[in-house]
């Protein structure tokens, strides 16, 4: 099966599961309205988005300098720095550290970067038990599932599935009450937190000025995992650095509002080095692993803008495609509009060529993006960049389409032909095209042209009617 067929099969499967589609619709709409309410409380939301975009742009343009400053400051406050050029290097560094500290039980804060490098399997292969501590990620882990949203990983699961997984995997009593389920998970994870010896997190922002890493969570797992174990390893994408502590204010005002609509998440933790000798608790060692994994290449190219992303998930919630196919259909760590850019860019092979094409280019993601990444524009550019790998027939058909649209006479002829030959499958839509059109309408509906064009109506006196 080609990558394209596999993608279509996943989409067909996802769309057919009404329960999941409904759950995702409900959850994303809730988040969209929460985001709007959160932004409405800002005096100057648009200006903040501009500032955030500008700070990220400036940082990306000067990335090596800011990383050097960050590295220097982390060292100054007693942290260790490592550099991982790719996913394999990141896994090797973190596994080496875990071995060196003789770790047996690692607790993990929800982190997209560690998903990106597929860290858990590597650690488990060397005998370290890894426990996800974000409630959603914990349930994904015990149910041997995959996250389907970058902020709310179990957006696709209902309480019955969660209750069943919890009862089966951790041996607690069966209950479908979210409050009770949360309590049971709390009790189970508390025991883990008492025994763990390694904490692993991602990084939301790294402040160059002070060598501080910022973690944002609502549950407190970010704090638990960086308070209880004696070692803390943070895996940080190199694009996560920001210049100054005060720049953080701009991003924090936007991040939670974009994710959940909250003005600020429950816990924003700023970690500057390991525990000081007189502190009663906290990790004695702090390791920050800087991850490139293709980011430097993206930075040099025409898609550098994607590196501004702060992983808030607003574009997923806003996207009509994501809402209908859910996260799993993307078959990628990063789903949704931003994932359709990041995934093919980080994995430069043809497996993900369909992702930038699975978009209606409606622009809802651009409007929602707190750092104003022009996602639809980049999707079009990415389509163009991978055009040569598209099937011959499709390229020919699109070339013909382009030619026809470029001249008034062929355009008019085309309209006439479409009116004659497009079958009407009800309510003015063509859902089953014939011939080469069948390929197109297999996954999309085509609006039928009206019986008379605007030009005809105009000629017949529309102009006089007002």
């Amino acid at each position: 099966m080609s990558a394209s067929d596999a993608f279509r099969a996943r989409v067909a499967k996802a769309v057919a599961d009404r329960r999941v589609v409904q759950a995702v619709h409900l959850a994303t709409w809730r988040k969209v309205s929460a985001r709007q309410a959160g932004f409405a409380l800002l005096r100057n939301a648009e200006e903040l988005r501009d500032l955030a975009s500008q700070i990220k742009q400036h940082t990306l343009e000067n990335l090596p300098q800011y990383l050097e400053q960050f590295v220097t400051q982390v060292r100054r406050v007693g942290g260790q720095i490592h550099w991982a050029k790719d996913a394999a290097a990141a896994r090797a560094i973190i596994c080496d550290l875990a071995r060196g500290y003789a770790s047996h039980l690692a607790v993990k804060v929800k982190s997209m970067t560690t998903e990106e490098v597929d860290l858990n399997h590597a650690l488990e292969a060397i005998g370290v038990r890894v426990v996800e501590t974000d409630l959603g990620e914990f349930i994904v882990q015990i149910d041997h599932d995959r996250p389907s949203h970058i902020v709310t990983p179990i957006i696709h699961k209902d309480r019955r599935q969660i209750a069943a997984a919890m009862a089966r995997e951790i041996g607690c009593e069966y209950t479908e009450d979210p409050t009770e389920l949360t309590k049971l998970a709390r009790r189970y994870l508390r025991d883990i937190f008492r025994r763990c010896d390694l904490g692993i997190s991602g990084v939301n922002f790294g402040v160059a000025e002070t060598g501080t890493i910022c973690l944002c969570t609502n549950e407190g797992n970010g704090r638990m995992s960086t308070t209880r174990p004696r070692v803390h390893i943070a895996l940080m994408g190199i694009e996560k650095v920001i210049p100054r502590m005060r720049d953080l204010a701009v991003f924090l005002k936007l991040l939670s509002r974009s994710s959940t609509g909250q003005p600020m998440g429950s816990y924003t933790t700023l970690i500057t080095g390991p525990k000081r000798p007189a502190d009663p608790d906290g990790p004695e060692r702090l390791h920050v692993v800087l991850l490139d994994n293709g980011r430097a290449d993206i930075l040099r190219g025409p898609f550098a803008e994607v590196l501004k992303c702060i992983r808030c998930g607003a574009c997923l919630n806003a996207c009509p495609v994501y809402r209908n196919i859910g996260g799993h259909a993307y078959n990628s760590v990063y789903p949704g509009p931003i994932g359709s850019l990041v995934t093919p860019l980080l994995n430069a092979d043809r497996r993900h060529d369909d992702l930038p094409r699975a978009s209606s280019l409606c622009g809802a993601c651009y409007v929602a993006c707190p750092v104003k990444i022009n996602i639809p524009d980049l999707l079009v550019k990415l389509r163009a960049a991978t055009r040569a790998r598209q099937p011959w027939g499709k390229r020919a058909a699109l070339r013909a389409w382009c030619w026809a649209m470029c001249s008034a006479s062929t355009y008019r002829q085309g309209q006439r032909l479409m009116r004659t030959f497009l079958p009407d499958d009800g309510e003015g839509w063509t859902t089953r095209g014939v011939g080469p059109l069948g390929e197109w309408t297999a996954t999309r509906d085509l609006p039928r042209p009206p019986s008379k064009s605007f030009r005809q109506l105009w000629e017949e006196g529309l102009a006089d009617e007002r």
Partner: protein
Amino acid sequence: MNADAPRADVAQAINVDPAVREALRGLRRQTESVPRRTALPDLAERVRQVGADEDLVRRFEQAATAAGAHVHLVSQTDQNPGRQAGARLPAGGIGPRADAKRCAWIAKVRELLQARGAKTALLATARPDSALNSERRQELVMFLAADGIAEQSTPDDETLFSVDAAITDVSAAIAETGTIVCVSGPGLARGASLIPPVHIAVVAAQQILPDLYDYLEQIGADADLPASHMLISGPSKTADIEGVLVTGMHGPGELHVIVLM
């Protein structure tokens, strides 16, 4: 090169792993072609949502309540210590320090603890300049003892995981977001505001800053930051199961903020 960018060779001066230094050099070479045309913007007035001239206590109360915290404003000018403290003074009295102006907040702490049937409470304060200075702390301890609540002040594992509540001071509060800030340091356990099921934070009204920006700007200039700044806005919460909001996932399920007016 942009004027705002930091100096190029800072990494040379300190003890950075040669592999990391080499990687940074490589990144510099790789990205030489990236045009540098965007300046770092000035922020101050463009970022602030709340100004210093506003009613900060009220803004704090609104925002913290919206985040799920319980805010208790306690006046310090009440006249009758006995009634405000909720009961007769402990046998033998608590000395002249327990003057009228200081007891209303203690009554609130006792009320909260008693309503939850608390038997033990961790008292984690170490800042001489905070709302819980040594005098206030001493008063509180005496009242708690009179109520039969064992006060713990050593934040070891056993204590953190077993106490019924933690009472802490804060290093700052933020009106815009209803946030309290705890920091790590000698005597200041990160776990105190995190592990016990109820967190009672005592804030002096003067500690409330207008905007998140004000706080971050202030600590950005600090060359000697504590290892951990914990910005806390409401109790621990999750909505991972069908979007239903549940408090107390990992951290405290209840956050009470007592503001001393």
